[in-house]
């Protein structure tokens, strides 16, 4: 058989393509469900850790269902939009839109002690790349109950410390946010911070946390991120009050 004849090559490629396509689609469809589940579980774990509930891959779903009692999609006027599933909202895409078209998710958690917390997802820019996280507020919508942050590529030992609970996130607990002077028309850099993240200012100041020494830019990034994302919710907070 001449393996170099054109007809042979056509047949060979066709057969190969069919086999490969079949194998791949089988793998993709067969595993899709599990993969989606993994992504979902990770997100749920993050949300839970924001309200200081520890979870494992196995019990995350159960705990999520137990504690996260409500979830909404909010527009810039603080109204609930039904059309969009808050759990699947892509923060990056939403933040790229203008304020008027932006839809942000919010989650309501009910803790074992009966209190409810509002969980707000946040996203912004650090020194080298995106940073993101969740902030949970007490039902006064002012006091921070917990915060988690993560980053893509901040400097290890400096900016990267924002993902450390002991070094950074812990100090957010109990701080208050100041939404009074928030102006959606202005950029975050140009207005008073919702919560200041500055070195040496955190101690004893309810409206500020200590920035990371040597990680000034990342710290500022966190501050702008909070101002941007929490500020968006100020109409919503006003309504729920």
């Amino acid at each position, binding site marked *: 058989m001449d393996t170099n004849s054109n007809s042979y090559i056509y047949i*060979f*490629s066709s057969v*190969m393509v069919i086999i490969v396509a079949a194998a791949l689609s089988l793998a993709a469809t067969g595993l899709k469900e599990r993969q989606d589940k993994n992504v979902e579980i990770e997100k749920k774990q993050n949300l839970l850790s924001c309200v200081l509930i520890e979870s494992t891959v196995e019990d995350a779903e159960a705990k999520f269902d137990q504690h996260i009692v409500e979830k909404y999609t909010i527009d810039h006027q603080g109204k609930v939009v039904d059309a969009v599933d808050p759990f699947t909202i892509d923060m990056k895409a939403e933040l790229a839109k203008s304020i008027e078209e932006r839809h942000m998710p919010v989650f309501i958690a009910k803790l074992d002690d009966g209190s409810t917390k509002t969980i707000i997802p946040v996203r912004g820019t650090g020194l080298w790349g995106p940073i993101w996280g969740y902030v949970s507020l007490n039902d006064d919508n002012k006091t921070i109950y917990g915060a988690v942050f993560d980053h893509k590529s901040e400097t290890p030992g400096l900016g990267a410390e924002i993902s450390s609970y002991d070094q950074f996130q812990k100090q957010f607990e109990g701080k208050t946010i100041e939404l009074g002077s928030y102006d959606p028309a202005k950029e975050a850099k140009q207005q008073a911070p919702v919560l200041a993240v500055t070195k040496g200012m955190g101690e004893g100041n309810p409206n500020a946390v200590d920035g990371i020494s040597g990680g000034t830019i990342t710290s500022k990034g966190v501050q702008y991120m909070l101002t941007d994302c929490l500020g968006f919710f100020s109409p919503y907070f006003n309504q729920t009050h």
Partner: protein
Amino acid sequence: MALTSKDLKLVTNPLNMENPITVQVLGICSALAITVQMKSAVVMALSVTVVLIFSNLITSLLRNTIPNRIRIIVQLTIVAALVIIVDQILKAYVYDVSKQLSVFVGLIITNCILMGRLEAFAMGNKPLPSVLDAIGNGAGYGVILIIVAFLRELLGSGKIWGYQVVPDAFYEMGYVNNGLMILPPMALITVGTIIWVQRSRYKQLIEQNG
């Protein structure tokens, strides 16, 4: 089915004297990217080995039927298909590791070791030696990856396999993890050092023989 010493050599040679990374200098990019932690390095090494074994095996089985004119495309398709399957499996079963490996699993396709072995070995050898060759090269790749990852995780994070091994007492005395070890350049320097050490030893071997 007994393995001859020649077969055995196919497995052992790539571990040292024909190591794909330190001697043939193939597959460096992934070695730099995923060696921050032992766990991801091991998963990567296993993935590469699995893909290599299967692609070597399939190529070897098909070697007489593959049209010469499109053989590179055929090899590529085999590798690509296998890599996608491995990627899917990782995402489904070891999600956290697959997150760390991110694009680098996909980039196994471009890992020079694979195409190199297919073209250089599997296209001209029977299935059994091809599989052995794949095991050897996969292991040779893995050994270096694990050594590099061991050093980087130990010095960079004070951990091995995610478990802290540098005692807290050290940190209290002022020890600090070396942030440079986590950055990609340090992987290059570590690989370079391994090559340095290996070449110095290799030179001695030659002197003894000759």
